[in-house]
């Protein structure tokens, strides 16, 4: 009986939390269309979340592409199909690894930083200070951060994919000796713009919404203590990472992307 009660309590808590998240999302959606438009904070956030993530995205993209090129070559060589290396690297990166790994990297770097920054503002009463000045903190602080995350995620994902293709090309062509024309030709013929590229960008967009929403929500609802900030940061990384992987499955299964 106790087990049933505990399960019920957990379920109710989960549903309540989902309800609060939905209300928070609706509040943020209202803020997007309510003037004034916060262009300057938005651009600053795009810089912080996007531009400052460029190096890590490029380095990781090249590394993942290089590993894919190496693994792909070792597998394909046994079938005598090394000319398809470009297709293997390209499809893996575009359809799956690009958006997913970018989202996971962005969660670790930018999502956690966003949650920590908002949590610190809660702990130091900066958000209450805004409310006392009749300024909605969700409008002024939260929405630009979440919107920036949504905008930069597809761009970072695209950059990750391009870096990965370059890494795969370096290893496949220059290290393993695959013909460059074959690599580029198989890549070009295998990757379809509307199915693969647009689908990939759509996936990245959904992940951007997820990370932006979770990071800002966890920071905004954090306890106003240093332990609260720490807990918000950790839970952002954990919840966002798990959500990305679960949503990835459903997007792939339902939309075939």
């Amino acid at each position, binding site marked *: 009986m106790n087990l049933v009660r505990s399960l019920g309590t957990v379920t109710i808590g989960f549903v309540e939390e989902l309800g609060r998240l939905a209300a928070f999302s609706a509040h943020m959606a209202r803020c997007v269309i309510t003037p004034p438009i916060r262009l300057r904070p938005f651009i600053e956030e795009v810089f912080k979340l996007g531009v400052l993530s460029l190096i890590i995205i490029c380095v990781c993209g090249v590394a993942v592409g290089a590993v894919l090129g190496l693994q792909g070559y070792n597998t394909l060589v046994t079938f005598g199909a090394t000319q398809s290396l470009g297709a293997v690297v390209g499809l893996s990166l575009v359809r799956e690894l690009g958006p997913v790994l970018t989202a996971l990297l962005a969660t670790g770097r930018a999502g956690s930083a966003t949650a920590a920054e908002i949590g610190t503002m809660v702990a130091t009463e*900066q958000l209450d200070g805004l409310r006392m000045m*009749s300024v909605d903190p969700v409008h002024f602080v939260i929405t630009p951060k979440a919107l920036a995350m949504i905008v930069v995620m597809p761009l970072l994902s695209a950059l990750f994919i391009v870096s990965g293709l370059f890494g795969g090309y370096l290893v496949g062509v220059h290290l393993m000796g695959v013909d460059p024309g074959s690599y580029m030709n198989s890549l070009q013929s295998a990757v379809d713009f509307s199915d693969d590229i647009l689908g990939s960008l759509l996936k990245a967009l959904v992940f951007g919404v997820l990370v932006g929403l979770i990071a800002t929500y966890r920071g905004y609802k954090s306890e106003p203590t240093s332990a609260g900030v720490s807990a918000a940061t950790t839970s952002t990384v954990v919840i966002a990472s798990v959500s990305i992987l679960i949503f990835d499955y459903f997007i792939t299964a339902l939309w075939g992307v």
Partner: protein
Amino acid sequence: MSSQPHIEPSTGDVAHIEFQHVRMSFGTRRVFDDLSCAFPRGKITVILGGSGSGKSTALRLIGGLVRPQAGLITVDGEDITRLSEREMYHVRPKLGMMFQDGALLNSMTIFENLAFPLREHTQSSEAEIADEVHDRLQSVGLSDIDDLLPGQLSGGMTKRVALARALMMKPIILLCDEPLSGLDPISLRRIESLLLDINRRLQMTMVVISHHIRSTMRMAERVLILLPDGAVSGTPQDLQRSEDPRVASFLDLDASIELTVAPVEAEPARSGRGDSK
């Protein structure tokens, strides 16, 4: 500055802020069971009480930052307990709040922090805003700190900047959460005299949380003591003469603690821009 919203205080009531049978708890922790008290118009009321007695909660209730589970709170004649957050944005221009640690926006310079409410709520030109900001900084004894970030200020300066920001929109009620805490005696007297000066010049209703009995007795026209089993209020003289053992023991205990505690923060050497870090 003609475009700045002008708050006209309602007249008639002696009590500018009133609590009626307020019940407030956080989870299972009950802060107020049935609190009724009033904060008179144009006067300085100091709230005293031990840790966890609900001093800051009382201030946050007045500002509408938290809502009571039961009871009524009126601010300038308006019941704020039923107002939504959006509706509170129309009440809050009447209120200025000085937070304990300043609550200045860390990513903005001091000038931007002070200009922020004017930029948000008025159509003033940048020149008018700059004049207003510098006037307000001068009124709290600060100058030449426009480009500093909040993290570069000393504790005393942060409090004064927070006070200046709280006054930017010309509120009629000023809420101060421990404005004297963590200050050395010189900074403490400076903030104290600033608050007194503002109250006398502007006839502003002030609610101040303090732990300093002596400064409370110098500054307050009314004192509200939050005790575990209720609240007691009166003039400082009334309370000093009170035969209520709870009040007597609280004032005695707090005074003795105050005399034994060393100043928390030493005032740094002056460097031409007030008290810099």
